[in-house]
C-alpha cells in the first residue's frame, strides 16, 4: 500500500495505491487524521486500490468517522466496481453516511 498526499489551500487529496489488507495497520488512519487537522475537505482517491478487506478498511473507517464528527467534508472518489462491491458488503459507506 502506498499513499500520496496533494494539499491545496482548503482541500487535500490522498491517493491510495495497492492492496488494503491487515498489513496497513493504523498507518493509514493516522495519515488521514493528520491531513484532516490541516484541511476542511479531504478527498480519498481510490483509483489505485486493487483490493480491500475488513481489516484494511478498519483504521480508515474510524479516522473518517472521527473527522466527519468534527464537521470535515470527506469524499471518496474513483472507486473501481469490484472495490465498490466489497465496500458495500462491509457496509462502509452506509455506516458513514457517505456516497461513493
Amino acid at each position, binding site marked *: 500500500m502506498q499513499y500520496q498526499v496533494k494539499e491545496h489551500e482548503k482541500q487535500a487529496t490522498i491517493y491510495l495505491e495497492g*492492496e488494503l*489488507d*491487515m*498489513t496497513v495497520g*493504523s498507518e493509514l488512519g493516522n495519515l488521514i487524521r493528520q491531513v484532516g487537522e490541516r484541511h476542511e475537505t479531504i478527498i480519498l482517491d481510490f483509483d489505485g486500490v486493487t*483490493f480491500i*478487506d*475488513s*481489516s484494511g*478498511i*478498519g*483504521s480508515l*473507517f*474510524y479516522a473518517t468517522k472521527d473527522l466527519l464528527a468534527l464537521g470535515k467534508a470527506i469524499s471518496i472518489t474513483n472507486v473501481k466496481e*469490484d472495490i465498490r*462491491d*466489497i465496500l458495500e*458488503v*462491509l*457496509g*462502509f459507506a452506509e455506516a458513514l453516511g457517505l456516497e461513493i
Partner: protein
Amino acid sequence: MQLCQQCPSDSSCQICLEGLGAGNAGKKVIPPRPIHLVHLASDTRYKAELRAISRIAVGVYGLEQWQAGRYEVELASDFRIIGSAIIPYRDSPYLVLDIEKVLRKEEVMQRLLVDEFHLWHLSHELEPSAVLTDHAASDEGRQQLIREQLDKLAVLQNFQELRMFIADGDKLRLLGNSTQPEDHLKRGLWKLVAKARLTRQNVRESLFSKEMDQVFDTHVLPLPDETCGIAVLNITNAIAAERKRQQAEWEMYRNVLCIVTKGKLILLQDADLYDFIRQSEMLLRYEIKSPADLQGMRRQMTEALVACDLGSRKPLHCVVAINEAATNVIKYAEGGKVELYHSQADQILRIVVSDEGEGILLHDLPKATLIRGYSTVDTLGAGFHVMLEYSDRILVNSSPQGTKIVLEWHHVKIGS
C-alpha cells in the same frame, strides 16, 4: 511392509491395526487425529497423526525417522500417554507405542473435573478409546436433543459409587458398605497416602482402573492421629453424562446457528469434514504465517479460481471471503493453512482454512459469527459477515486444538 495409500480410511486394509499386536481389539482413528509427541531421551518433539488405537498400544504416523525408546504422546494439552516404541515395519513412518502410563497434568488435577471436561467439549476424549468417532451414535444423538438436555439434571445422580477408607499403618480399613478396591487401584491409593503423609496436605487425584475404563476422583486427607481418610468416587458415568450434555449443547448451538443463517452457517464435526475432503481433489495449498503472506495467498488463489472458470466476478468474491478467514488465522492463531478442494461428484468448491490456535469458545460462536463489529481487534469486525455474504455455505469446526473454517461454493463444475 508398508501402510496402504489410503491409511487409515480403507476399511478393507488392516495393516495399521496388525502393527498394534492387539488382535481384534484395535480400532482405527477416523479421521486421524493430529498429535504431538516427544521422544523422552532426546527431548525431540514431533508432529504426527494418531491412526490406530487399542487398550495396550497406539499407532502413530509421521514423516520422521523414528528413534527407539520411550515417547510422550499429547492427545490433548492435559492428557498424555507414555509409551515405548515398537517399529513394526522397517524404514516406515509408522510407529507403534506400547502404552505404559496415562498421564494428566498436575494443574488439571487441581481443577474441578467438570472444568476439565469443558476444555475437551468438542474433542470428546477422556480415554483413548473415546477418541474414536462413532457416526451412528452422533446421528442418533441429533434426534435425541431433548432427552439429552434432561440428562443435564442426571449428572449429579450419576456419582454411582462412593467408597471410603481409613489408611491405618499399612492397613486399609473399609468404612460403611465400601468394598475392597481392586489391586491396581489399591496401589494408586497407597501412593497418594504416602504423598499425603509426607506433605501433610490433602491430596486429590484422578486414578484409573487397570483397564482404563473407570475413573476415580480420589481424595486423601491426612488426620492428626497419623491415619489418612480416603474417599474414592467413581465418576465414570458422571463423565459420560457430562460429555453427552456437552454434545447436546453443541447440537443446540448448531441448530440455532443453522436456523438463524437459513442454513448458511453450519457447525461441523471433524469426521464430517474428513469425509468431504476424502472425496475431493486438492487444487492448491498455501501456508500463512504473517500478514505479508496474505498477498501471495490471494494471488495464487485468484489464479487457481480463474482457472476453475467461475465467471468474471466470482473469483474476486471467493478471494475476499478466503482472505477474511485467513486474516482471522493470523490474528487469533500463529498462522495456519489455506487449502482449495474441488469435489467433482458434488460439484462443490471448498476452501479449508485451518489453524492450531485456541479455538472459538462455543458460547462465543454466535457473537463471533453473526454480529457485525464483534471483534477484540481494532478492525471493522465484519469478517464473518463478508464470508457469509460471498460464499454459498460456511462450515465451522472449532476445538481447543484449533479452528477450521470451510467456505463452500456450489454448482461448480471444472472441465467439461
